């Protein structure tokens, strides 16, 4: 609401309220100073600031110097904090690359694991990871986006919704090994899926569901309400407004959240160890009910052997895993930029 017409009833400022008093006072002062009493309105303001301007920075007091020093110290501390992270990462990457880069060739990518280090490769793990990734995405994406849409667009804001909301936020903080125990009890045993890709994917889906739900909710909430109002005002149903306006606008955020959550799933080890996937696998899954291994498990497997050759193999697998993760993050950024062209 803008454009308030001028208010007639506002009280005038105090000095204007009683002009006769200020005028009399000023005239008295002026008479004292032997000046001619003339202009009753144009009182001169005293000049502001020093009469004799000094050069900036010429006279710096102790306090000012301390203030400057504190600023510089803080600057340096922040830069150091950043450097710590970067340096650690560079050392880690350098070490892994030095150990493992020599291992990576076509044979490494296309051979199965073996007891003989020269013949060992990551085919089973790489294909297993892709299986896991695809299944997890297929399971978790529709479930999380559906939950996010329900919570943001359909659910009434009452204590039940608030409780669900709080629990989702809490679930996002549950350690992954706990999900592994749940997966073992529910999927491997109760549903009798065994140590299959499907059981693993379901477990990892549970693990990342809360993360995607929260990211999707955030993205949906960021769509301005005026867009919903516009759609409803044209006679759109709730579903039409959501499908045709809200979701397309929220999609970049939803996809980014999903891909980041999936890249977490690809790197997960503990829950899969828990459901019993840590075994020697020298074949690729042909269906969702086959046994499997994934890159982090393979790395874990090789690292726990005493021979140096296997450690180098593990380093090679780490490089491949990192490459997969970086590709996924790049995809997230690309998607986000691509869908934001209208904004």
């Amino acid at each position, binding site marked *: *609401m803008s454009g308030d017409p001028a208010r007639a009833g506002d009280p005038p400022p105090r000095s204007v309220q009683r002009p006769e008093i200020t005028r009399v006072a000023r005239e008295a002062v002026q008479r004292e100073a032997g000046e001619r009493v003339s202009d009753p309105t144009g009182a001169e303001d005293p000049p502001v600031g020093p009469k004799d301007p000094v050069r900036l920075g010429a006279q710096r007091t102790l306090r000012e110097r301390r203030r400057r020093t504190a600023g510089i110290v803080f600057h340096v501390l922040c830069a150091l904090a950043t450097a710590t992270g970067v340096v650690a990462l560079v050392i880690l990457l350098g070490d892994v690359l030095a150990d493992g880069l020599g291992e990576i060739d076509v044979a490494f990518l296309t051979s199965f694991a073996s007891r003989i280090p020269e013949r060992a490769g990551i085919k089973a793990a790489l294909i297993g990871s892709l299986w896991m990734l695809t299944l997890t995405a297929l399971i978790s994406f529709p479930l999380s986006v559906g939950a996010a849409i329900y919570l943001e667009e359909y659910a009434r804001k009452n204590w039940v919704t608030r409780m669900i909301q709080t629990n989702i936020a809490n679930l996002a903080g549950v350690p992954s090994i706990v999900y592994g125990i749940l997966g073992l009890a529910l999927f491997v045993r109760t549903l009798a899926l065994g140590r299959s890709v499907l059981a693993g994917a379901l477990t990892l889906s549970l693990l990342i569901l809360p993360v995607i739900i929260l990211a999707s909710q955030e993205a949906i909430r960021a769509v301005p309400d*005026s867009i919903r109002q516009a759609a409803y005002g044209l006679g759109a149903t709730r579903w039409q407004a959501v499908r045709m306006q809200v979701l397309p606008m929220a999609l970049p955020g939803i996809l980014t959240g999903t891909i980041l959550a999936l890249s977490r799933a690809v790197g997960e080890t503990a829950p899969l160890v828990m459901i019993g996937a840590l075994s020697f696998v020298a074949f690729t899954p042909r269906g969702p009910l086959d046994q499997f291994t994934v890159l982090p498990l393979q790395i874990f497997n090789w690292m726990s052997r005493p021979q140096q050759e296997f450690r180098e193999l593990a380093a090679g697998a780490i490089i491949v895993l990192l490459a997969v993760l970086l590709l996924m993050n790049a995809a997230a950024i690309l998607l986000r930029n691509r869908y934001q062209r209208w904004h």
Partner: protein
Amino acid sequence: MATVHPIDAGGRAPALEARGLSVFYGENQVIKDVSLVIPAHRVVALIGPSGCGKSTLLRCFNRMNDLVNGARIDGEVLFHGQNLYDREVDPVEVRRRIGIVFQKPNPFPKSVYENAAFGPRIHGYRGDMDALVEDTLRSAALWEEVSDRLGESAYNLSGGQQQRLCIARTLAVKPEIVLMDEPASALDPIATQKIEDLIWELKARYTIVIVTHNMQQAARISDYTAFLYMGELVEYGPTDTIFTNPKEERTEAYVTGRFG
């Protein structure tokens, strides 16, 4: 204060009639027993100070208040003799036949064309969409300015053009009544002038109810004016009468700028 203000609408049936309408937000009653008749093919202005409930009243006319958490509505709004708040009435259908334009231009983040086509699309329009879009943009006096930019994002248009696009988008679903909630308050004087000219032209084909904060605007464009104060309908009548010879003292005080 259940005063019905009968208005001579040239023998035509009223487009809309509110009877004993009250709106509550939680414990707060923001509209108090308002009754009024909106004549067909006329421009009716709702004026009043900020917070007097004029936007809320406007949103009752196409059930936009349904979307507000905790809003409760008593009374009736008659449209072709049917109460819009009857159990069997579908608010989605109501909003197609009674369109609304908001205070701030809110085009969809899509092309100009897609903005105009959205309404017809969701209602399953099967005819020539290009023709409908052109026709719609023409009736919102926008075609000349955007005919070569249909594929561009609506966000590239100026504020005034965006608002006319929003009006076009509303007209595209062929409503009978167009509600406007301070449609020009976010625009500069020239864009405002264009919107006002447009409203003047649209009157021939639509009934228009407009909320405005600007009394000169109400005086310029409306046939009837309703003055609301603290949720009550204080006075309603021909715009000339409200501005030159109001019956109520509060109306006179407001239109002469003594408060508000």
